[in-house]
């Protein structure tokens, strides 16, 4: 009974995390399409939400990695998963409050690793999975997107550079509708699967599923719905701030950036690598900008991504570990997670009310 209560809290927290992931990432997924005029904001956001939903159903490789290859499911309990989720959410809140860069995906994995180490020790961590499937792809993927987008746009300019700009721009705007759709599909499949993986890990830890089990259909469907709803809800906030936050680029650059991002995320997803999708999308945008002229690139964004790489995993791990320690003060039952959930909700409401009073804009974190 007690573990079922914890499991319900974990599922609810994971889906809330998934919703906020979609909410924050809408800007990254639709920015290039809107900035080049390839699609109206309402259309781009609705399409992104629908394709986020569809994308969540096309693969379970990343979910399998998160559930089985990062921490040893045999020694994990639902309380450990809960503490890891709180570690990720808390770190996202800290970075949001101070305007620091963040990666929801890295925070999620860092949180679970931290709480697992606090509860069981380093034996709980599967080093091969963490290094081989999380840390290395986290570094390689944005650089790869940068190179692919830069190479693509350099070749594009050689092919169509002497043609009439009107025809070329119109052509790439049509192309962007498709490449933008693929990017939304890619975002949905990689990011939603992290939540599926976490819920599956909790179900295995609770004994509801056997070790190595795939996510059940209800987990896939609920994670898909949560990220799609988040994307759709986040969009309306983005529409209001579109003019100030979107990078200026032409349609060919937008197509190259979206194509590179979609290719890298979809290929990585196929091999089960959980990525920070926003880092990859930013890598593609910077690559397509750098190929035209270096000064067009917002190099500050690149610096922020490096800071995010360095800080997110250890910080979320530390908060996850601390949260696990706090839950244990209340014993092994459901009381600890219930107290932490109530305290977290109160803190989140207080932070949002304080931020709303100040009237400051909400910066986007990354997924």
């Amino acid at each position, binding site marked *: 009974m007690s573990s079922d209560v914890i499991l319900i809290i974990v599922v609810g927290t994971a889906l809330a995390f998934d919703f906020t992931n979609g909410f924050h990432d809408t800007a990254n997924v639709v920015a290039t399409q809107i900035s080049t005029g390839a699609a109206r904001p309402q259309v781009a956001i609705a399409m992104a939400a629908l394709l986020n939903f569809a994308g969540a159903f*096309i*693969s379970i490789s990343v979910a399998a990695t998160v559930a089985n290859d990062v921490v040893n499911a045999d020694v994990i309990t639902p309380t450990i998963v809960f503490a890891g989720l709180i570690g990720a959410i808390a770190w996202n809140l800290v970075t949001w409050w101070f305007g620091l860069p963040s990666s929801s995906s890295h925070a999620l994995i860092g949180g679970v690793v931290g709480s697992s180490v606090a509860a069981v020790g380093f034996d709980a961590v599967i*080093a*091969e999975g963490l*290094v*081989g*499937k999380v840390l*290395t*792809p986290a570094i*390689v993927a944005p650089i*790869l*997107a940068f*190179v*692919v*987008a830069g*190479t*693509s*746009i350099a*070749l*594009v300019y050689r*092919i*169509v550079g002497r*043609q*009439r700009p009107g*025809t*070329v721009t119109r*052509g*790439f705007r049509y*192309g962007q509708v*498709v490449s933008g759709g*693929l990017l939304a*599909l890619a975002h949905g*499949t990689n990011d939603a699967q992290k939540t599926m993986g976490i819920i599956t890990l909790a179900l295995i830890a609770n004994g509801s599923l056997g070790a190595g089990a795939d996510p059940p259909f209800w987990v896939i469907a609920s994670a898909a719905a949560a990220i799609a709803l988040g994307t759709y809800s986040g969009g309306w906030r983005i529409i209001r701030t579109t003019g100030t936050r979107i990078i200026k680029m032409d349609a*060919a650059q937008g*197509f*190259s950036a979206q*194509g*590179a991002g*979609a*290719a*890298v995320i*979809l*290929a*990585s*997803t*196929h*091999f*089960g*690598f959980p990525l920070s999708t926003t880092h990859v999308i930013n890598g593609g945008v910077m690559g397509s900008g750098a190929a035209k002229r270096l000064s067009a690139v917002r190099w500050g964004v690149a610096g922020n991504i490096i800071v995010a790489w360095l800080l997110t995993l250890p910080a979320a791990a530390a908060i996850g570990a601390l949260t696990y320690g706090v839950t244990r003060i209340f014993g092994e039952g459901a009381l600890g997670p219930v107290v932490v959930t109530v305290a977290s909700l109160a803190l989140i409401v207080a932070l949002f009310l304080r931020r709303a009073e100040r009237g400051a804009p909400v910066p986007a974190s990354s997924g």
Partner: protein
Amino acid sequence: MIATLVEGKALAETVAASVVAGVGVTVVFSVAIWGVARFADLSRAERPLAAAGALGLGALALAATVASVVLGIIVMTS
């Protein structure tokens, strides 16, 4: 040790697939746009044969783009 920790083969395949799909599809789609743009110019210049050739190449490139995207999604879901 490093080789054991890093999934070298899967990572190399990811890099290869990303480069082929990302650069390949973008370049092929550019050829489709080039074909349409050249068709319009050559038609205005009253060179119907060359215009038809450019349009044919553009159509072929567009078909290849669509096929690549569909193939990519099929590979993903398999």
